[in-house]
């Protein structure tokens, strides 16, 4: 048996994680002394934590650094993803207070949990050891199970939490078994060393233990990014979870899943690219098609967006299948713009909804455009971006993903993607038809636009439109951040 070498400790690469963990623990203590009507202050405090973490993050751009015996790394790839996570959590916190006050479960634990979930996502993006990735994933998942079931009095939220927990733990089993078998076949859990081993011992690709390990890991990650046929939990969990948490779940953890999946597939198994590309091709087509087809006849808008988020994972998988610089940069760009447009749309859903998760149907939006023209316009922008129409970030992102696929020779995949995108226009436009072309049934007088939600919507609109008109800056960042 070898002895364990204690590595030199360098906190610089995980500084944002450290800061957020400290903030989360302090918030847990402070929470006890804050009366329940002032829990919003905890939200503002956690926003401060996110901003501080953001500053420590930016400093690392372009200066790759690994620490803890190469089990975490700070590279542009992880920094880009961490930026997405901070943004996602920040925007979700902005829309949380109003929602949870209305639902009368304004508990302070929400904010520490969100911060811990962020720490988990960050570890997933920067982990270069299967162990770190697994731990990050579990820190994220355990927090998310609670967040999905956060509204204890609401049966739907209970169901969402329970279902997410059972299926999430189930999928963790597969992921872990995959990791164990890969470890057995290659003798290491370091992602880089797995690649070294595979390139030196080509025969390992015929070793059933190795192949099954790779497949099981792919199953585990597919579950986390909600790729079909491992998507069954998504609609129920997204519908039942509290709306701001749905917004968070659909953008942040999905991006984190992609980050970890890409790191493992691209760094650990580059010599087997042809094999996993075929697998991803099937996943991408299934995910896009199933997501879009079922979304067509959904009436509940949260459920509709859940299926739409499955479809969006499919579009990102198109870029992943391509596996070239353009496709992977497309994924980074798309995940960022998806965070803006999706959380923006959910912010409007929070505003329109009533107590007890009521008023969440597409039909409830009848006449929204005449009663609240500005908010309806913002919603229209988000929906256009989700449908992938210019001049929005959603269009640029899809353009990059599909052109990456064409450059890599996957013409049919790109065609299927574009057809799917065209089909998706139907259910996004349906909401707009209700907003603008139906007579108002209700007065929408219960709506209260608080500054926090307004800020969130403004950030989202800018984030959707600005990269849509001048995409160069963000695309450059994304291209500098690719792993290849």
């Amino acid at each position, binding site marked *: *048996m*070898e002895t*364990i070498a204690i590595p030199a400790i360098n906190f610089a690469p995980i500084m944002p994680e450290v800061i957020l963990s400290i903030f989360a623990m302090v918030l847990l203590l402070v929470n006890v002394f804050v009366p329940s009507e002032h829990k919003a202050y905890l939200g503002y405090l956690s926003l401060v934590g996110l901003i501080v973490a953001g500053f420590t993050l930016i400093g690392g751009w372009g200066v790759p650094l690994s620490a803890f015996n190469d089990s975490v790394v700070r590279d542009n790839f992880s920094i880009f993803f961490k930026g997405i996570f901070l943004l996602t959590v920040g925007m979700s916190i902005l829309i949380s207070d109003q929602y949870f006050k209305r639902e009368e479960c304004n508990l302070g634990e929400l904010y520490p949990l969100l911060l811990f979930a962020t720490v988990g996502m960050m570890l997933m993006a920067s982990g270069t050891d*299967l*162990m770190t990735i*697994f*731990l990050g994933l*579990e820190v994220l998942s*355990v927090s998310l*199970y*609670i967040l999905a*079931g956060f509204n*204890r*009095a609401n*049966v*739907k939220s*209970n*169901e969402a*939490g*329970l*279902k997410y*927990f*059972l299926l999430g*733990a*189930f999928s*963790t*089993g597969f992921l*872990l*078994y995959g*990791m*164990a*078998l890969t*470890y*057995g076949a290659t*003798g*290491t*859990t370091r992602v880089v060393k797995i690649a070294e081993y595979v390139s030196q011992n080509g025969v390992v690709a015929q070793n059933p233990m190795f192949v099954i390990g790779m497949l099981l890991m792919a199953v585990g990650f597919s579950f986390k990014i909600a790729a079909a046929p491992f998507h069954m939990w998504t*609609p*129920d969990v997204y*519908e*039942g979870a509290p709306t701001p948490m749905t917004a968070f779940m659909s953008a942040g953890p999905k991006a984190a899943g992609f980050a970890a999946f890409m790191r493992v597939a691209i760094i650990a198994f580059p010599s087997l690219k042809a094999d996993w590309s075929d697998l991803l091709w099937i996943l991408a087509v299934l995910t896009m098609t199933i997501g879009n087809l*079922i979304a067509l006849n959904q009436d509940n808008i949260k*459920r509709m967006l859940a299926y739409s988020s499955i479809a969006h994972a499919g579009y990102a998988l198109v870029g992943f299948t391509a596996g070239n610089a353009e496709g992977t940069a497309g994924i980074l760009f798309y995940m960022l713009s998806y965070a803006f447009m999706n959380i923006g749309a959910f912010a409007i859903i929070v505003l329109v909804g009533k107590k007890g998760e009521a008023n969440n149907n597409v039909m409830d939006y009848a006449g929204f455009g005449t009663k609240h023209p500005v908010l309806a316009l913002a919603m229209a922008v988000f929906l256009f971006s989700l449908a992938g129409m210019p001049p929005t970030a959603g269009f640029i992102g899809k353009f990059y993903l599909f052109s990456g696929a064409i450059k890599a020779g996957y013409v049919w995949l790109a065609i299927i993607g574009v057809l799917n995108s065209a089909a998706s226009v139907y259910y996004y436009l349906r909401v707009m038809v209700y907003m603008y072309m139906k007579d108002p049934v209700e007065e929408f007088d219960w709506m209260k636009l608080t500054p926090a939600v307004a800020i969130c919507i403004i950030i989202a609109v800018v984030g959707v439109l600005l990269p849509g008109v001048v995409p160069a800056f963000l695309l450059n960042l994304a291209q500098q951040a690719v792993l290849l």
Partner: protein
Amino acid sequence: MVSLHSYLILSAILFSIGTIGVLIRRNAIVIFMCVEMMLNSVNLTFIALSKHLGNVDGQIFVFFVMTVAAAEAAVGLALMIAFYKNRESIDVEDVKLMKL
């Protein structure tokens, strides 16, 4: 001396029993126990491989898996209690408020 093969086959059998249990049982707590069984079969795989390879990484991994499983158990049972308080049941057949 028990060979590596026997350990791997045993853990594969345990993992399969766990998987089948998750798929066919209807009580949330039993399902959760089956998930725990899957995780423990993975632990067995890790330890057997670690011994075989002469590399401690696998054993360290097992500690993390056990810690995570404990955290998951705490959260999972809390969620089940919350569900039970509202529905007086932890049968997954009753988790059906939202369907296609």
